[in-house]
């Protein structure tokens, strides 16, 4: 699987600086109210600030220094949470900017109508509108996303995909989509522009990352409800503690009632501020991780759904097998020596840089000891493959060798008055039946035989499928092959199931049936005929090289056009949910320790006996309360990296993952604050602050 993840340093100076500024800007009440948990902290901060001002006048409920310290740290809690969100947004923006920069303004030849000779006007790519027609000739950059309407050309898409081999783009069919920023290297195309400036996928993504359009995902909403409920519980716990405390003072005849400052501090410590403060950062970071994997998700909902996927539809070619088939056998015509065929095949492929061509050279060398020769030494002329002829070959002196699809060679041979032998036709048929691709080789008007190009299952793919099975995800291979061939490849690759002779209708039916059975289906596709299935699938990754229809139907676009990326998409989705769940557990588990710090301190004067609960042996009631509040604020900052990077994910069964995360974040969440609060208390005492 390709590693396109561009590692970004966690705290880049520029992003961090902006984020710090942003965290103060976010203090406006209109922004704060969007996050109910943090809003309550915000109100607590304002309340304690008021109490501090009151204390300054000498009528305060406690020492003004103490109230000030509590108030200050409550403000920090709010600011730290804002910082986490600003960091996530900043990183997303930086990522988007990098992508945006990769697109340069180029000049385009705008045509009046879809004819090559039509009137041309020079125009900047930024001024192109949807529906404009542009002519792109060899050497030109394609100025905008669009669809080829006339012509056929080889296009270098390495700028986007990183693949050096050029691809064919032609009008009509599944290979008509072209992407802005790629370059035509042979022939020409007339392209109809498919998006206005600012409406391309990139632009949509940028606006999403920039926060304005980010909508809460279903699980995020459900979690928000839980957090809000917990917040209400703690609000009531703290509010009722005041009458309880007053009653206790009367009952025990000692001390005085607990102060509002302490109650506000207790409330903020108990409220799930850790997860509440990091929640939106986690969501944004999830989208950001998708972008780092070169996948643009159309919505956060799609990212989240990716984690739930339990069925993957994978195209055989390019995903399960190497996109390029490899030569495995030479089958000579009845009166031809196999060595002669091998030699001719090798010669014709010497200059053929495609993986298929190379594999023919290698096979001839390995099987028949034919050493590859330099094309210059032979004084040969190489005849390249073109989309029209559908064959390639070499001319050495009088020998002209051609290899290509059976029909093309048949036509080529017959043109020269040659015969197309029956046994070669049979060989071609049997190879096709096995799911292989036959390449016929001819010298002059004589057909020499057939090369068997076979699907090669990708190395390591079997382990990936085993991994997916452990995660509880069923894999289904989609192929146009006949069932026999499909079964053979499916068994070799280790997929759970396959759909052979797949038609668009069959694919759609398969997805609908799986969904009716309660499954969530993910698939990758590129062709127009994939579009209905993509639209039906819950997670649909369209290849960037695919047709416009496919891209419209999908809810994610993979810029690398790598169908294996589906597996990574699932991983990122799961990681997003896991990060939320783990931090929620951590946040709630933290509360136990905070109680042991604050309750004995809050009632120290009423019930000194409660000091028995001060198991951390915190120095004074003030230091205990301050330490808990400081811990509560600082832990947010400490967890920002985790929120941005996501918790560690290894493919494993659900119970295994739960066990691990329960231990790390549940039990860890119970223990960590005991240690943290004690350390902060020691520091406060050491600095003489309390």
């Amino acid at each position, binding site marked *: 699987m390709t590693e396109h993840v561009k590692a970004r340093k966690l705290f880049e100076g520029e992003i961090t600086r902006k984020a710090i500024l942003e965290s103060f800007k976010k203090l406006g009440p209109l922004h704060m109210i969007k996050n109910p948990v943090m809003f309550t902290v915000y109100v607590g901060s304002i309340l304690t600030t008021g109490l501090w001002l009151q204390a300054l006048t000498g009528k305060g409920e406690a020492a003004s220094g103490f109230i000030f310290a509590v108030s200050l740290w409550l403000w920090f809690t709010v600011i730290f949470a804002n910082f986490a969100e600003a960091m996530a947004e900043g990183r997303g923006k930086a990522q988007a900017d990098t992508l945006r920069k990769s697109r340069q303004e180029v000049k385009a030849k705008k045509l009046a109508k879809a004819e090559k000779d039509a009137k041309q006007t020079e125009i900047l790519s930024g001024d192109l509108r949807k529906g404009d027609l542009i002519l792109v000739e060899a050497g030109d950059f394609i100025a905008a996303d669009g669809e080829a309407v006339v012509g056929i050309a080889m296009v270098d898409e390495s700028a986007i995909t990183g693949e050096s081999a050029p691809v064919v783009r032609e009008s009509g069919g599944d290979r008509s989509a072209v992407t802005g920023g790629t370059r035509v290297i042979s022939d020409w195309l007339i392209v109809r522009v498919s998006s206005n400036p600012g409406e391309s996928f990139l632009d949509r993504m940028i606006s999403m990352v920039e926060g304005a359009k980010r909508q809460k995902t279903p*699980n995020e909403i459900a*979690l928000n409800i*839980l957090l809000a*409920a917990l917040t209400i519980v703690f609000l009531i716990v703290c509010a009722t503690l005041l*009458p309880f405390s007053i009653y206790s003072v009367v*009952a*025990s005849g000692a001390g005085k009632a607990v102060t509002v400052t302490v109650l506000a501090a207790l409330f903020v410590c108990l409220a799930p501020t850790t997860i509440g403060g990091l929640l939106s950062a986690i969501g944004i970071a999830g989208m950001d991780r998708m972008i780092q994997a070169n996948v643009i998700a159309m919505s956060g909902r799609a990212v989240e759904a990716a984690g739930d996927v339990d069925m993957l539809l994978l195209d055989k070619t390019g995903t399960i097998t190497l996109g390029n088939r490899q030569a495995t056998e030479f089958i000579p015509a009845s009166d031809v020596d196999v060595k002669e065929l091998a030699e001719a095949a090798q010669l014709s492929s010497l200059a053929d840089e495609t993986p298929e061509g190379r594999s023919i050279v290698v096979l001839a060398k390995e099987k028949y000891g034919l050493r590859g020769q330099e094309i210059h030494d032979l004084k040969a002329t190489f005849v390249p493959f073109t989309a029209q002829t559908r064959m390639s070959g070499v001319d050495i002196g009088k020998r002209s060798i051609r290899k290509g699809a059976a029909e093309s060679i048949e036509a080529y041979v017959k043109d020269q008055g040659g015969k197309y032998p029956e046994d070669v036709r049979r060989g071609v048929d049997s190879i096709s039946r096995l799911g292989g691709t036959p390449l016929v080789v001819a010298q002059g008007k004589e057909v020499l035989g057939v090369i068997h190009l076979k699907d090669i299952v990708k190395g390591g793919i079997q382990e990936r499928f085993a991994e997916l099975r452990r995660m509880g995800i069923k894999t289904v291979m989609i192929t146009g092959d006949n069932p026999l061939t499909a079964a053979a490849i499916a068994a070799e690759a280790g997929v759970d199931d396959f759909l052979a002779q797949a038609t668009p209708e069959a694919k759609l039916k398969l997805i609908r049936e799986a969904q009716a059975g309660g499954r969530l289906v993910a698939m990758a596709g590129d062709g127009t005929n994939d579009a209905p299935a993509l639209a039906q699938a819950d997670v649909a990754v369209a290849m960037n090289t695919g047709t416009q229809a496919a891209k419209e139907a999908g809810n994610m676009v993979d810029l690398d056009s790598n169908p294996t990326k589906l597996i990574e998409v699932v991983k990122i989705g799961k990681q997003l949910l896991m990060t939320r769940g783990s931090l929620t557990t951590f946040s709630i588990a933290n509360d136990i320790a905070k109680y042991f710090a604050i309750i004995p301190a809050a009632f120290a004067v009423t019930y000194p006996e*409660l000091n028995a609960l001060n198991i951390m042996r915190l120095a004074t009631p003030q230091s205990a309360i301050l330490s808990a509040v400081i811990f509560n604020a600082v832990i947010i900052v400490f967890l920002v990296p985790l929120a941005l990077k996501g918790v560690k994910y290894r493919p494993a069964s659900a119970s295994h993952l739960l066990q691990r995360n329960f231990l790390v*974040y549940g039990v860890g969440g119970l223990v960590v604050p005991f240690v943290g609060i004690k350390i902060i208390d020691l520091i406060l005492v050491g600095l003489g602050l309390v």
Partner: protein
Amino acid sequence: MTANQWMQIIAYFVVLLVLAIPLGSYMAKVYENKPFFLSKWFGWLEKLIYRVCGVKAKQEMDWKGYALAMLLFNIVGGLILYAMERLQASLPLNPAGQSAVPPDLAFNTAISFITNTNWQFYGGETTMSYFTQMAGLAVHNFLCAASGMATLMALIRGVIRKETKFLGNFWVDMTRGTLYILLPLSLSFTVILIQQGCPQTFANTATATLVQPTSYDQPVTNAQGAPVTGKDGKPQMTHVTVTEQPISLGPVASQEAIKMLGTNGGGYFNVNSAHPYENPTPFTDFLELLAILLIPAALCFTFGAMVKDSRQGWAILAAMFLLLAPMMYLCGQQEQSGNPLLNKLTVGAHGEALGDGNMEGKETRFGIAGSIIWASVTTAASNGSVNSMHDSFTPLGGLVPMWMIMLGEVSFGGVGSGLYGMLAFVILAVFVAGLMVGRTPEYLGKKIQTYEMKMASIMILIPPLLVLVCTAVAVATGGAGTNNPGAHGFSELLYAFDSQSNNNGSAFAGLSGNTLYDLMGGAAMWFGRFWLAIPVLAMAGSLAQKKVVPESAGTLPTHTVLFVVMLTSTVIIVGALTFFPALALGPIVEHLKMIHP
């Protein structure tokens, strides 16, 4: 704890399990409308009931219809009960001539009995006529239990059905639950109780002449019931000599059986199951204890059978047991250790220490073991009957029943309501656990989404809200009626509203009622019951409409030890986080003061 206590506890749980397993699968048959021996014999009666009441048994209801039927039924029942209490002086079967129950008390009691709480701000033998006890209170003991089970069944059907909005027919569930489960069990139990010595009679109070007259001084009270002070500033006293003792009787056995089986707990007599006529022998004590947890435990197996995965039922039962067992141990250990201040005193005739644990407020017939098992079991389930006075327990011993109620009555809990309350916690645990494994949480194939979380959150939010707010109002208005000063008085108030909000009904004794407490408690019981039952049905309706997600390795298993631990910790943490401050100011500080005087 002593070996005797261990043996009693182990014997209790073993026998409970042996009885609960077959009962559980029997109840599954009842609610799945499958044929069984009783339905063959009494099917005609069931059909007759439907015909008389005009119930269309085949017509199922969606969640709103089901909830409406359930609410209407309980409201009308409550109104009838209220009227009965108010009019009892002119109704038959009132040999002792009990007068009308005051309005606030009648209100509190009516709600108390329709909500399966059975909180009693009154003494049964001195307030209620035989008619009110039998036709009012005992009848509602059946109906509210059946209503709780019906609500649970709607939820279970929501879990197992797919893509439908129908949850069953409330009237059918009520009828079958009463006719085939509660009535046969109660009838058998009543017969045993009568054989063991429980009265079952309409005869008036008997009077016994004392062999040895007793006399004592009693303060003189004025018209308002306040003590009158003499010229020397001391309360005026009058000398009273007692030669006769009235012995209250009535239809006790029939009410006792359903009181235990339906997790109702409202005693016929003021002292509840500590009274020899409610609980005559150690054998009835053991049977009554079993009756408390029998149906709540069996419902776990019913659940397992209905979802076609018995492991799910076992997992929930295991979690319930894990919540109860350590607390039962703590209670026993504390009561057996007794009060260190008293233990030091040499009070015996020969200078020996008091020792042997805390026997204050306990029946000598049952001893410490019998009392602590009862105290923890009756509060784990929302039964609320008592055979000892929880107020007299050691501080931490008394914390145990208080804590068991604070958990929200989900460790066994009330019949039906306990399991549906626990399932709300299951949904909460599944939600957090589901996120931790990276998938939209699901339980038994049903996705847990926003709507379910809303409902589960309401269910988890309501009880603590009621407990804390009512207690806060009570202490803010001065905390009248407490029997003890200081932290213990606070515990009495906290316990009273804890018990009512969670529909338990046991009392910490000591606290006397007044109009404010009657009304506030009534409201707490009402909301504590129905503001949980309605979200349960809403959730059931939403779950029933969902598809079932097929199980895979990515599915979070909900029957494993790990999940049981997770569920147990969720219940404990929610309870602890909500009530730790209140407990610290009540029993915990009381305990600390006791050990560090």
